[in-house]
């Protein structure tokens, strides 16, 4: 799951300035779940852009815009609509926009901003979050990650800012260390809060240089790709 939210309309109209016709592409994956680029938002965007004087050559959603083979196969029957547009407005996350831009020979505009979820990367996300830090500390903290549960990502215990067990940043948010304390107490592991945690090795948090160019497990061979013409 990747969370996205629609950009302000003035930003989108700014990207489309000077263009007369647009093809709108939504995503029935995470963007539909986020309420930023599903069928309902695509229909709404079509109406809004028409109201603003744009010609819409086509407007569809595809199951997962991050899947390039799927994007190409679904767009092939609509080649005329795509070709007839000055650009494509892609209503999904940053991955989807990049996947469409890599698949189609057409200017692609992002209609959404991808929101940082602070580590909520599970298939079925609950409140548990993981920053993928490469140096797991959960043994010391009762199975609650201090990097994600504490707004300052403190690893050696709480700052002085909490009030009534809530974070100073937001009275609705639990102090992560308050949760860690309660969990450790429940498990008879309170001695763990006295362990000195040395500075983290943030180099372990960076993707490897190989992954920075492309994910090692990407499902396609990059150099064999063809674009929809």
């Amino acid at each position, binding site marked *: 799951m990747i969370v996205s939210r629609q950009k302000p309309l003035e930003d989108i109209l700014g990207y489309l300035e000077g263009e007369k016709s647009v093809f709108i592409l939504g995503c029935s994956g995470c963007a539909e779940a986020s309420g930023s680029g599903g069928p309902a938002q695509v229909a709404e965007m079509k109406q809004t852009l028409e109201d603003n004087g744009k010609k819409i050559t086509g407007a569809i959603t595809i199951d997962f815009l991050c899947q390039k083979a799927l994007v190409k196969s679904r767009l092939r029957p609509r080649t005329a609509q795509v070709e007839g547009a000055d650009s494509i407005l892609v209503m999904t996350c940053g991955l989807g926009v990049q996947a469409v831009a890599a698949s189609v020979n057409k200017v692609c505009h992002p209609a959404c901003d991808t929101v940082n979820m602070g580590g909520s990367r599970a298939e079925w996300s609950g409140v548990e979050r993981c920053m993928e830090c490469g140096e797991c500390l959960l043994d010391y903290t009762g199975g609650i990650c201090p990097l994600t549960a504490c707004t*300052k*990502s403190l*690893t*050696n215990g709480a700052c002085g*800012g*909490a009030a009534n067990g809530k974070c100073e940043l937001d009275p609705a948010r639990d*102090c992560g*260390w308050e949760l860690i304390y309660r969990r450790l107490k429940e498990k008879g592991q309170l001695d763990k*809060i006295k362990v*000195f945690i040395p500075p983290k090795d943030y180099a372990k948090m960076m993707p490897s240089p190989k992954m920075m160019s492309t994910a090692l497990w990407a499902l396609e061979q990059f150099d064999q790709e063809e674009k929809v013409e």
Partner: protein
Amino acid sequence: MSLRSAVESGKFAITTEVGPLKGTDITEIEEVAGLLHGRVDAANVTDQQSSVMRLGSMAVCHLLKEKGLDPVFQVTCRDRNRLALQSDLLSAHVLGIENVLALTGDLPSLGDHPQAKPVYDLDSVQLLWAISRLNEGLDIAGNELHGKTGFFAGAVVTPEADTEAKLELQLAKMEKKISVGARFFQTQAVYDVDAFAKFMKRVDGLGAPILAGIIPLKSVGMARFMNKNVSGVFVPEDLIDRMAKAEDKAATGLQIAAGLIRDLKGLCQGVHIMAIGWEKKVPAILDAAGL
């Protein structure tokens, strides 16, 4: 007398705080430095307190040093990664700054540049550990220094808490801070002497000198604001009443502060007066407290 010699000699240590302004005007700092000279053992210089961008702590520490005051260089982990923190500590040493107070630092989102990227590469405990390493002639990556630092490092603790977790976490963190090199503590503002006495009993035996925080009350509104918004500060109702009934609020606020100092004198090893705009009144508070 320097802070180190005051604390190590067992004298009741007196420190205060200077908060640099936003901008380059140092007139008031120089004036305050003159008034405090000879009255306090050291003066902390805050590091962009409340995450509001201001003149830097290191430069002001240097100015205080030139004026004959012993500065305490407050360093937060909010704005600098481990390279910048260590480098600034080396720079501070070269400028003759001997004391450092290690803090985590307020969140930038609470200050006047909420768009800033929070750093927190190290936390306050790890920063104290880093200072100890620099004092030993090593950086935290284990590389040898050409010339080591000689800092007297301190830390903060909040004696009062509204939950069990908060208190126990504070105490555990305090122990950790001592184990990695904290040699003195300055506390959040204290208004309830009995509650503070209980805290002192809990930390009895840890061996680190504690300087109790004093913030003179200026008004009823200020007391209520702190109770509502400043974590770890609890101004008892009887003090708020006294302020409400007072004709001269400023004089009463100073008297309350002086009274607290007298009451705390038998309980801890010193006081840290955070006057927040009333720096020029610190000598009057000390006079009233008989110090």
